[in-house]
């Protein structure tokens, strides 16, 4: 489904990703872990097409298409969803209106019929149940005045409505207390399906207690240095990221250089 090969990316003249290779198959949940500055958020931003991220080498194919050639909206329509680390507040834009416009814009790009307000409302009601979100949030402006937990839940709720094929969760656990974290994880788990893949980017193992990954990768200095199953996350939790460096002195030297 998603194939990243030898990806190099640069931000503000600085090389951040330095040859990242990763394959995600349909229905798999991959966790990307790594210390601060490893390039975790850059990966999410490059995949979703944010401006200011320059890909200098490598390729990303999504269902056989060159993902990097698409505009952000084209990537969304293709089925890629980024749950933001810092969801943006948009005063004056109603949450429901925004979500319907987004869904219909995606459907239009895919050549599907747009949903009228009744059909959309029905869909929203179904998804609200899954996410256990009060519909009061829907009537407010997008993320405006939302608490940290509400913002993250709103991200997952958007994901539920937009039904992407690949969801990228960019440090969705950051800034959440344990209850909010559980709620968000619950929402994500409800959306797991054999047709939907996840890329869960996180600094801490904590989130992975609730969203159980099929694979765990360690990102350090712009590339994946270690891959394994969920037990890898536990090792990282126990020994810290230094452990990866210790196991790979060559890399450690390079990182120090």
């Amino acid at each position, binding site marked *: 489904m998603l194939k990243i090969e030898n990806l190099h990316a640069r931000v503000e003249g600085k090389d951040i990703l330095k040859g990242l290779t990763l394959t995600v198959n349909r229905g798999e949940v991959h966790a990307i872990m790594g210390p601060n500055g490893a390039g975790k958020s850059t990966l999410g931003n490059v995949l*979703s*097409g*944010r*401006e200011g991220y320059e890909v200098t080498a490598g390729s990303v194919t999504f269902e056989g298409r060159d993902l990097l050639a698409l*505009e*952000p*909206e084209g*990537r*969304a*329509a293709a089925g890629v*969803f*980024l749950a*933001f680390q810092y*969801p*943006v*507040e*948009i*005063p*004056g*834009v109603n949450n429901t209106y*925004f*979500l319907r*416009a*987004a*869904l219909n*814009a*995606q459907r239009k*790009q895919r050549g599907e019929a747009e949903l009228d307000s009744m059909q959309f409302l029905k869909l929203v009601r179904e998804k609200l149940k899954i996410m256990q979100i009060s519909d009061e949030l829907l009537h407010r*402006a*997008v993320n405006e005045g939302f608490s940290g937990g509400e913002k993250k839940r709103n991200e997952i709720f*958007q994901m539920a409505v*937009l039904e992407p094929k690949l969801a990228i969760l960019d440090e969705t656990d950051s800034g959440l207390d344990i209850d909010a974290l559980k709620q968000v994880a619950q929402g994500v788990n409800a959306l797991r399906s054999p047709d939907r893949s996840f890329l869960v980017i996180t600094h801490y193992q904590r989130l992975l207690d609730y969203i159980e990954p099929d694979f765990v990768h360690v990102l350090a200095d712009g590339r994946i240095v270690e891959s394994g199953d969920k037990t890898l996350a536990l090792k990282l939790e126990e020994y810290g990221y230094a452990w990866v460096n210790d196991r790979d002195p060559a890399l450690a030297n390079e990182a120090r250089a």
Partner: protein
Amino acid sequence: MSQSPASVPFIDALREAGDLRLPGSGLAWLDAARRENLEAFIAAGLPDTRAEAWKYTALRALGQRRFALGDAAAAAHPVDAHALKLPGIDGPRLVFVNGVFRADLSRLEALPPGLSLQPLSRVLENDPEPLRFALSRHYREAGDVFARLNAALAGDGVVLRVAPGVRVNKPVHLCFAGTPGRADVAWHLRNVIELGEGAELDLVEHHLATAQHKHLGTLVGEIVLRDGAKLQHALLQKAAEDSTLIRRGSLYLGAKSQAMLHVLELGGALVRHDLHAELRGDQARLDTRGVFVLHGRQHVDTQLSIRHQALNTASESIWRGVADERARGVFRGAIVVAEGADGSDASLNNKNLLLSAQAEIDTKPELEIYADEVKAAHGATVGQLDERALFYLRSRGLPNAEARALLTAAFCRAVFAALPNETLRDHFSDALLAHLPS
């Protein structure tokens, strides 16, 4: 003062016009006032940008143009009455086409009791004396240059009075339509509006074009609110893209009177809107809301001046400007709290959005306070669309143009939230959305 009048075609056309037969001609006081104002206008010429009031709005190009003094054929231009209609507005209507009153398009039969609504030309014919004070005014400031021209040449307009204590139950629709003629026409209209003590009125002022033209229109209006009167004034300006429209409104508020103004400026190549409001009676309240959305090479200049002159008066002004392509917006919001106007509460908020690197908006809030225990706040900003918000919307699937339009509309939205006529409010929103670049 700087241009030699002899070299300005705009002025030459006036000088060569000779004797004008206008409604009311023959009334000695009116003839004298018109003549004096015309002479003063010709002598002074068009101000240049060294005049503070015209600092950001150059009139040189206008000065190079010649306009026909009125449109003799205006009464015969076919205009589809349906095009004048506004949703939610089905009350009395007064229509001018190229500055000429059109009884055939107006709706003046069966006026609600207590409402008097007539074209100025008819009042000048039948009973001019009550207008003597309003029409004999002299204008001296550089900012008043077009008021002077208007005083010299206006032969028609709106005379509207609401009797004391009367609540007019239907909105009154004032419609100013432009339509192509044989030449570029200059038209001048003068409005005199008065709400008696405790009277209430909804007023909708509507500028539109049936087709493209390059006319110049000036509209000078005076609105007097006696004690306890209440006015809702909504203005939809969709003049022709190449037209010039100059409006000057004076608003006088008596004790405990309330006025609320909503302005949506969309049309015109060169547009100037001066609003001078005086809160003259204790506890008077004025709310102004406005948006301009500009593109191409449009130039829209709004000059708001609010004077608090009495105890415990309040004014709140919220204005938004959006300029795309090579458009230029100007906003000046000046609030004066005069000596003795203790307990006044004044706020002014002006935010502007530039959608292109070539667009420009100049904003200048001014606040002068000479009274005690005054609450005053003002702020003005000029910025661009929030790139983070734009990316957020696009990452959810909204195409770039749609995302930009959505954010721009959101930027303007708060301005019309308090417009009480819901149908009209929706229409304003739709008109604004339709005007946004996509």
